[in-house]
């Protein structure tokens, strides 16, 4: 009985456990370098694009294992147009931002239209998009690099030297705002847990055991606190983290708590049944890809801000990072299952492996090999454990 419990716990939390072990491995191998404040901070800033793109990609994958191969090119194209507008055409940055979001969403809608209403297979449609928008990026930039100078824009979207949330206390060497934010996050989390439990008990629903809830709450709080501590010891909360947090919270809420979210799972689970239950399945496909375009635009801005320039080669392989994170994070290659939280774990796992290998100075070719094997391993695990369930 106890053994079965342990097994089911491991099964339900495989990727979290894997994350813990892999992190521990790198802490050991790098002599603790990987958890230095600066590295923790970089882990977020460097991988911010993956978190955002993977969240959007999850919606596409939910509809039935469909992927969007064009995101890397769209990121680049949106960044290229934005940079050109701001630097070469002297357009106000606010207008440029709105324009970039509109372009990205329009590109998403364009692809979504073919996929949803004409039923062009997503793989082909977005492969075409990948070529089209990579080419157009070159056209817009004339093959050259455009440097960004607008500091407000750069700071807001997580780039430059000063891409951190301002500390209102101004202590030397310790970013108190960050620590307080972390504590606040813990308090909110605990409050929601307790409130949910009280509500459940009141209505006479089943609640999980108190012990389980306590252990989980303590662990999650400790992780948040430790994380905030490391960030406070560096320069505080990177602005990119704010963007990521907003995206993750909003999309996590949509997928788990709204009718729209449920429709995504239904379409991926059984499209025919969904259609005959009154769900407009075409609309769901359309929304998934339009939204992907919107998030790609957001990442486009984050990318040019971070690199303070736009180049025709930006965003390459971003789609692969996003797709990989989704599958590692437990999304099914056939659609219908997967969570935003899982995808974030998947992206973190990839980020930790990346950073760990860089610190360990693993040859970059071998890095690719290892990342590929991790992805394959995760999917094999998913397929095999599903088979066993049947």
């Amino acid at each position: 009985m106890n053994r079965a419990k342990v097994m089911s716990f491991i099964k339900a939390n495989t990727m979290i456990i894997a994350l813990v072990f892999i992190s521990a491995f790198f802490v050991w191998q790098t002599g603790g370098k990987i958890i230095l404040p600066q590295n923790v901070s970089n882990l977020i800033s460097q991988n911010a694009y993956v978190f955002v793109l993977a969240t959007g990609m999850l919606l596409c994958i939910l509809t039935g294992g469909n992927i969007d191969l064009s995101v890397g090119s769209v990121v680049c194209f949106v960044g290229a147009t934005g940079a050109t507008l701001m630097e070469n055409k002297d357009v106000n940055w606010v207008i440029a931002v709105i324009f970039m979001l509109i372009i990205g969403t329009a590109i998403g809608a364009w692809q979504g239209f073919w996929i949803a209403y004409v039923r062009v297979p997503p793989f082909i449609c977005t492969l075409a998009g990948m070529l089209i928008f990579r080419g157009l990026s070159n056209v817009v930039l004339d093959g050259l690099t455009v440097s960004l100078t607008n500091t407000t824009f750069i700071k807001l979207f997580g780039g430059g030297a000063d891409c951190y949330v301002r500390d209102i206390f101004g202590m030397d060497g310790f970013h108190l705002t960050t620590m307080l934010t972390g504590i606040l996050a813990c308090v909110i989390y605990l409050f929601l847990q307790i409130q949910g439990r009280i509500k459940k008990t009141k209505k006479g629903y089943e609640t999980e055991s108190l012990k389980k809830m306590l252990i989980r709450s303590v662990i999650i709080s400790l992780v948040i606190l430790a994380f905030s501590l490391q960030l406070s010891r560096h320069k505080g909360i990177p602005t990119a983290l704010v963007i990521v947090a907003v995206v993750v919270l909003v999309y996590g809420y949509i997928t788990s708590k709204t009718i729209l979210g449920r429709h995504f799972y239904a379409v991926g689970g059984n499209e025919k049944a969904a259609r005959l239950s009154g769900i407009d399945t075409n609309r769901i496909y359309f929304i998934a890809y339009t939204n992907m375009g919107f998030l790609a635009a957001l990442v486009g801005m984050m990318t040019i801000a971070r690199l303070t320039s736009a180049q025709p080669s930006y965003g390459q392989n971003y789609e692969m990072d996003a797709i990989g994170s989704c599958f590692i994070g437990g999304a099914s290659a056939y659609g219908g299952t997967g969570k935003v939280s899982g995808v974030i774990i998947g992206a973190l796992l990839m980020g930790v492996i990346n950073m760990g290998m860089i610190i360990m100075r693993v040859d970059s070719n071998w890095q690719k090999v290892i990342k590929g094997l991790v992805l394959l391993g995760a999917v094999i695990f998913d397929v095999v454990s599903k088979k066993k369930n049947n």
Partner: protein
Amino acid sequence: MAKVLLEMKDITKTFPGVKALSNVNLKVEEGEIHTLVGENGAGKSTLMNVLSGIYPYGSYEGDIFYDGKLCHFTNIKDSEEKGIVIIHQELALIPYMTIGENMFLGNERGRAFAIDWDETYDMADKYLRMVGLEESSRTLAKDISVGKQQLVEISKALAKNAKLLILDEPTASLNEKESKALLDLLLQFKKEGLTSILISHKLNEISYIADKITVIRDGMTIETLDKAVDTITEDRIIRGMVGRSISDRFPKRENVKIGDKALEIENWNVYHPIYENHKIINNVSMNVKKGEVVGIAGLMGAGRTELAMSVFGKSYGKDITGTLKLNGNEVNLKNVSSAIKHKLAYVTEDRKDNGLILMNSIKHNVSLANLSGVSNKGIIDADKEYNVALQQRESLNIKCPTVEQNAGNLSGGNQQKTLLAKWMFTEPEVLILDEPTRGIDVGAKAEIYGIINQLVAEGRSVILISSELQEVIGMCDRIYIMESGKIVGEVAGAEATQENIMAHILRTSNKGA
């Protein structure tokens, strides 16, 4: 006394946690048709999988004697070599391969690196003629009807030199005419010395074809009835299967008041979604009143499902014309969600394929067609959803430990009830039930019938589409008979017999030919 061809002795097979078979005995004589009956999950298919080597020797206990010899089959190839060929319930033909390619798949003619296609197609044609098919073996499998595909499966078995043919519910997806043809074919092969084991749920077929009937219940052999010795009646078989006699298979409705017309269609025409000149539904007019159960009888492909779906928010077909009235008011249902809003429900046939989301929980399946009923401004109230699922589980008697369980883990009957629950939650006034009892056991069927009676007692209307004539006759106040997209007859339930319904259908199809 004929020779015993197959004897399975004390077969016991356990899956983790479940004893699927315990000490099952089966004796089949050469040249007989032996049927296996039992409720869903009784162990019939498991027994046949043991026999054919799908569950290899060593994974079960007991002995199999075939042709007097003890056999140790480790895979299907072993049993097929001996002439034991199993035809599974789900057809295993590959749609984009020709009949010939399908027939010799895994058994190719010629050499491994030089397949002899001329020989393949020549032999395939011969086997097709043996089962009475005139098609060329170069036809793609997808281009022939399901009934013919089943015959191709049989000719495929013959091509493997079958001596003992095992058919797992071969007529499940066939209409009455096709089923009869298939059974007659088996009778003809029997004369030529072929032995068959038939798993079936259809009692009329069993009494028509079987020499012996072995009843399996809860993984045990209950009895073997011999046509030559025992008098076999349907009630007798049912009693063996469920361990009790279902005296009244179709519960009576009492004091149900039939009111005004709830749904009425006039001059309904529907064209095929792809072949634009192909008229699927031809000038159909029909109605159903409050408190009434109306049946639509007809053969597979008569257009019953297409009619239902075209009415249900135009979910099938093109260029739909005609008028649709609900409670006397003409409405235009543009899509499924508007049909649901107008209190119409269509409980789909094939619950696994287009009814339920098997990987989702019962709870999520139940709320799916009426998510706005458990949410506020687009945000789902998880507590409300859970409660709704609990209520539906209670009222429809869905047997499951929790409503969080995946729908895919339920038995067929409980899946069907979950599907019904989903539509009950949309609070419909008119329900169209498409094959609501296909592939579920006798006990679950009775429960579904009870639910139908409950529905009309509450003043709702039910349109029942079913391929089982007995069911339509037993349950309906009125029956429309459909053939080739037209209504070819209407009979009152009390006057309906299988003979007069079939007569309506056959007269029309003869005319058409």
